[in-house]
Structure formats: C-alpha cells, structure tokens
C-alpha cells in the first residue's frame, strides 16, 4: 500500500476512502449505540419513553386546551408522527455537533476520514428513530389510524430528507465547534428555536398568512413531516413545502460537507 502525503488540495472529497474505512464507521456507530444505554435501568426504553412523554404533554396542552385542528388524524397520532422525526433530527444534530470534540483524543492519534465521526452520530439517531417508529405504528393500531399505501414511498422519503439534513447540519456544526466552542452553547438554543418552526405540534397548513408557510418551509424538517403525515390524513402533501425543503436540504448538505472538508485537515492542530 502506497500513501502519498501532500498539502491539502482545494476540493478533493474521497468517497472511495470513506468506503475503505467502512469497518471503522460500523464500529463507531455500534459502540455509540451500545454505550448510550449502558448502565441505565430502562435501556433502549428511553428512546421510546421520551417521545411518549412529550406526546402526552402536547396532547393535554394543544388538543384539549387549545384545540388545534388536525383534520381526520387524532392529535396523539398526529403529534407523535412529528415528534419521532424531530427527535431523530434533534438527536442527530446535537450529537454530531459535539462529536468532533468528544473524539479529540482519537483525532490526535490516528488517521481516518474525519467525516466518519459526525456521520456515525447521525446513524445512532436513526437507530433510536426505528425504535420510535415501532411505537408509532403500535399507536396507529390503538387509535385505529388508517395508513395509506403511499406510506411505502413517503415514509422512506421523509426519513431520507431528515437524515441528509442532519448529516449536513451536523458535519457543519461539528467542524465549527472545533474552532469556535461557542456553538456548544448556541446549539441547544438554536435547536429549540428550530423546534417551534417545525410543524411538530401544529399543522403547517393551519398557519395564516400564506407567506409564513413559504418561510417556514425552508426548514427541511417541515418537508419531512409533511411527507410523513400524508399517508395518515390521506391528503396529498403540499408539494410547495416539499420542494422548498428539499432544495434547502441539498444546500445544507453541500455547505456542511464543503466546510467540513475545508477545515478537516487542521482539526488535529486545534482540537
């Protein structure tokens, strides 16, 4: 094996190298999943309890007190659908954002494509999501919620949008976090703000005036939730929201990868 070491180039993103290190990627993810619920009594149960608890609170607040109109879908099912997607996004971005700092020791000792670190954090969140999805399907059964066959297309599409957005935002923030530790404190706050601009507790369609919908659609999580809820209500997703969201998803991914790539080689000097 011959390795050439040279000053970093401008834009050389090596997917082949990433593939060569797939085993390390797998072990990082598997280790994080195992460590996450070690020494806890409830274990993976936490991945289920958190969205359930929030669902309970939001149902009491918004369906009983404020009476938000969610059409044919009952509010607990409606809010849980948004919550499991949001939780995946939230977990992925916050974990990925912290990930480079947490792995500072390994970065200073061996070489591997650094992108593996934020990507594996996103994958851990996806694992939690699958646990949440199973609970969601159980709740659909309890509430006798019909799910249209379009779910076979829309559910995976919603998951892919969330994962790609989280990968882009996560790698961007993790790179920023290495240099400017400010983002460590700004991140939870930013995610909190983003939560209220996502249609988790309310349907985007209920907002007036229309321009506000267009603005909020920039948040790709809205597109994902829109797609995810469509098979439940039987109403076609608002394609305007989906298109804007997909566009900004691509922008977030490219910005994230570009910035990560640009700063990656110097992580060891400052981490």
């Amino acid at each position, binding site marked *: 094996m011959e390795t050439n*070491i040279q*000053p970093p180039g401008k834009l050389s993103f090596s997917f082949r190298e990433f593939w060569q290190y797939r085993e390390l990627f797998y072990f990082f993810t598997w280790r994080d999943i195992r460590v996450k619920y070690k020494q806890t009594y409830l274990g993976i149960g936490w991945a289920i309890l958190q969205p359930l608890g929030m669902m309970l609170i939001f149902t009491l607040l918004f369906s009983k007190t404020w009476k938000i109109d969610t059409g044919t879908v009952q509010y607990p099912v409606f809010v849980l659908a948004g919550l499991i997607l949001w939780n995946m996004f939230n977990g992925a971005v916050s974990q990925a954002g912290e990930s480079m700092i947490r792995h500072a020791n390994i970065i200073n000792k061996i070489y591997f494509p650094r992108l593996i670190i934020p990507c594996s954090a996103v994958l851990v969140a996806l694992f939690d999501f699958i646990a949440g999805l199973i609970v969601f399907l159980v709740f659909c059964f309890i509430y006798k919620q019909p799910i249209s066959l379009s779910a076979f297309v829309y559910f995976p599409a919603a998951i892919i949008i969330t994962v790609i957005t989280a990968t882009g935002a996560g790698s961007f923030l993790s790179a920023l976090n290495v240099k400017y530790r400010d983002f460590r404190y700004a991140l939870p706050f930013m995610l909190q703000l983003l939560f209220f601009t996502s249609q988790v507790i309310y349907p985007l369609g209920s907002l007036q005036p229309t321009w506000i919908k267009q603005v909020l659609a920039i948040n790709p999580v809205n597109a994902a939730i829109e797609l995810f809820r469509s098979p439940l209500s039987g109403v076609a997703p608002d394609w305007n929201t989906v298109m804007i969201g997909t566009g900004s998803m691509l922008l977030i991914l490219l910005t994230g990868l570009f910035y990560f790539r640009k700063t990656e080689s110097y992580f060891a000097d400052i981490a």
Partner: protein
Amino acid sequence: MKPAIEIINLGKAYKLAKSPAYISLREMISGSVQHMMRPGKKDETFMALEDINLSIMPGERVGIIGRNGAGKSTLLKIISRITPPTTGRAVIRGRVGSLRIYSLTDLYLD
C-alpha cells in the same frame, strides 16, 4: 527496493496567534474589525519544519533525536497523517501505527 518512508522537501508552518487556540467568536469578530482598520498586518508564521529530506529503507531502524521544539513530533504527526504538511510531500509504502504521546494524565486514564 524502494524506501518505506520517503520525505521530500517537507515543511510545516504554524500560524502564531496572539490569543490562545480556543478563540471565541467574539474575539474573531473584534479581530477582523481591527484587521480592517489596520490592513497589511499579517499573522506571524512559524516554520516548525523546513526542507526535510530523508528516506528510510524497509527493515531499517531509525530514531529521531532533537531538542525541545526541534520538530520531532511534528514530523511524526505528518508521517501518520494526523496533520498535513504545508510544503513538500512524503510517500509511505506500508502502514503506519498510531501516534502515542504519553503524558502522566494519559497513563492515569489507562
């Protein structure tokens, strides 16, 4: 036979910052404002390594000796691809183990 490690005109420059490496966003913004007020003032750079040439044949055992700040660790960091060089290049034929710089705290943690 080709050398296992070949280093050609290798150099590594570090930027010397007046503030510590953990600069905050606030300092960066105030710094860039100051920079605009007084243009032409550049960051000081420090060459940790300059024009290093060496080749190590397979089976050879080589030790690197030098005083504090001579650049021993920097050279090893570049060979193990932890940090990139600024100039020149290096060719590695084979595999490189992990870099381990022991300090008292490391030993405690292990």
